[in-house]
């Protein structure tokens, strides 16, 4: 029997945002990434064309991260000691872009300096042509000092600078504005808080076309249901026409999944958890896939095998659909 399918037509649309600039646009990137532009719920090909596929970013650090899971150290190996080599390796496993997360201290325990951060960023930019995001260590004063130096030294590259949070966003936004970069705005799993921060940032005169929002997601088993629903609600608000939520979403399933005990710890855990390595990769992959279904545009991952699996899932989710 012929079926009249239910096709949602929404008044709103997510902004399309391009990360990275090629030489033609004043940067040095060999490729750029464009995300957003959705006029429908995730992968609802029957409602609207899906203009851009979600992308996978690989998170790297400016120095060897002692607190990362031994499984990550084992798979990346020596490159983890050098951000440029690590970035190249990440490109090699299929990253669409790189997220460089700066550490609070150098390997000798001294606070990371602006010069050190700039050197790390420059080395990554020289090693790979992929677009880049640079996140501070998460301490307001240090973040500001490092990110301002990085932004100035990379003017015109259209980096994503983060993280802007409600308690610390002005300096980062100002330097992104002055140096032609983008920002990532992070809020804790709440539609209104996300919207509020976007308003505060745009009130500074910063264009919404240069803001990504990070709604914070939680990992599988550690609150992902809150992140999942916050993201679904944010995307619904955007489609319903709420200008301040019409931004692509960047999420960090790698960070979230790899801090859980399930991924971090291999011994002394219940037998029912199964093989450590496979479980950890599943933890990251399942977290990422659930967030894709909720509307993620950029997924920041850590393990190469998760990158492979999530990219395969994205390719399959972008396959054209014949409904009838």
């Amino acid at each position: 029997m012929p079926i009249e399918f239910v096709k949602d037509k929404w008044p709103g649309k997510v902004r399309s945002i391009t990360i990275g600039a090629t030489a033609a646009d004043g940067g040095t990137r060999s490729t750029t990434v464009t995300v957003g532009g959705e006029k429908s719920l995730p992968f609802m090909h029957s409602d609207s064309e899906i203009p851009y596929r979600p992308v996978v970013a690989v998170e790297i650090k400016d120095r060897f991260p002692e607190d990362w899971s031994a499984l990550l150290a084992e798979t990346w190996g020596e490159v983890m000691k050098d951000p440029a080599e690590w970035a190249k390796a990440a490109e090699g496993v299929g990253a669409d872009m790189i997220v460089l997360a700066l550490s609070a201290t150098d390997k000798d325990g001294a606070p990371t300096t602006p010069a050190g951060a700039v050197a790390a960023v420059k080395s990554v930019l020289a090693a790979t042509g992929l677009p880049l995001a640079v996140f501070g260590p998460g301490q307001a004063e240090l973040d500001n000092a490092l990110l301002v130096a990085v932004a100035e030294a990379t003017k015109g590259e259209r980096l994503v600078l983060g993280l802007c949070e409600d308690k610390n966003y002005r300096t980062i936004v100002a330097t992104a504005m002055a140096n032609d970069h983008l920002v990532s705005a992070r809020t804790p799993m709440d539609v209104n808080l996300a919207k509020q921060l976007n308003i505060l940032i745009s009130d500074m005169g910063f264009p919404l076309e240069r803001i990504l929002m990070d709604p914070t997601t939680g990992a599988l088993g550690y609150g992902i249901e809150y992140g999942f629903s916050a993201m679904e609600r944010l995307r619904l608000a955007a489609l319903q026409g709420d200008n301040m939520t019409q931004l692509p979403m960047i999420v960090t399933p790698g960070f979230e999944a790899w801090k859980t005990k399930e991924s971090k710890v291999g011994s002394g855990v219940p037998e029912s958890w199964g093989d450590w390595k496979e479980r950890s990769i599943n933890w990251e992959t399942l977290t990422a896939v659930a967030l894709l279904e909720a509307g993620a545009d950029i997924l920041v991952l850590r393990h190469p095998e998760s990158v492979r699996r999530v990219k395969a899932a994205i390719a399959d989710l972008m396959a054209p659909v014949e409904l009838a």
Partner: protein
Amino acid sequence: MALSGIQIYKMLPQTNCKECGFPTCLAFAMKLAAKQVELAACPYVSEESKAKLAESATPPIRLVTLKSDGFEVKAGNEVVLFRHEKTFYNKPGIFIKVRADASPEEIKAQVTAAGAYTTNYVGLELFLDGFAVEASGDAQAFASAVQAVRGASHKPLILISRDPAVMAAGLDALDGEVPLVYAADPGNWEAMADLAKQHKAALAVSASTLEELADLTEKIKAKGVEDLVLDPDSQSLSSSVVQQTQIRRLALKKNFKALGYPSIAFPTDEASAAQAIAKYAGFIVLDHFAPELAYPLLVLRQNIYTDPQKPIQVQPGLYEINNPKAEDPLLVTTNFSITYFSVANEVEGSGLPAWLMVADAEGMSVLTAWAAGKFDAERIAKAVKTFNVADKVSRKRIVIPGHVAVLSGELEGELPGWEIRVGPREAVDLPSFMKQAL
């Protein structure tokens, strides 16, 4: 569309005869609207009202229940597209595929391991729901395989074969239960429907388009088989999202009965299994059993199907871990169940005795509660007083989660004479912190 209690009341006899077991017709109507009673309880309702009410009273997505000796798996009865609109009700049953051409010993080993599998998550015992026995083409082998599975587990079954003769042999091997017959298709549906009817089994219906699927369910329903399960036979993750969403939209928004049934999915990898949970499958058949996938999938299912209105909480209070004495350390966290169990499990696993004070943060995690103003210095200080903590511990020292280090100063003000220590951000780092810093 669902009718309100008042709308239903108008169609009832309005005699308050009480024969339905309720004091008034209105009370009965309210229960009908809430889908807590059956209309059949009213002996006097008119045929016309009966037809109208039956139409509106049936849930837009039919509830299908598979049963076996001591077990039940339910799917359907869902009422929303997004969990935040209300909640998702019936967690998709997760079944493990068993191949009939395996030896009885292999089948026994596989089914025993998967059937006995349980894993603890925030105090809940999670387990797999049943087995899907796939025929190889030989009826006798299928019957033997079904018997071999039954010899190792009593959990509900899905029987897989497109050949009615083979299916009949499998069904004959079962007694007094409701399995799912997989599957009726455009070629075999009459014989499969007869078998399902004869054995009172639920029937999966498979077709390559939703239109064909709707045709088939209508024809099968006309034969008297109503416990149907949809197999849209999706060929990609994208077609699965679109088809599953259309099925649910049509059922909920258009009350389209021909697709008002739960669905079944056969994920081929981790990603498609995760998607089946997030996007509307009612039954999920995994190709094989592996704890490293079963555990995260069961947790994902638990998370997605948690009622957003009722975060899983533990009772606020002062918990004793590893028999603490008065001089042992005092830690504080929130009453969100995931948070509590993460912390309690780490402390317990460390073997170190400690007092764990659980503050009432309205069931939110540390960061979320802090952001929402539900886990601040005032609340922590209040908990210290409410639970008479000072009478239990001899050292006035409290360890707060690293994520709320910012509360230290205020808490010193709220708890004069107490030493405030900042612990690690993540529970997993607690044992080393406790060993080194406390």
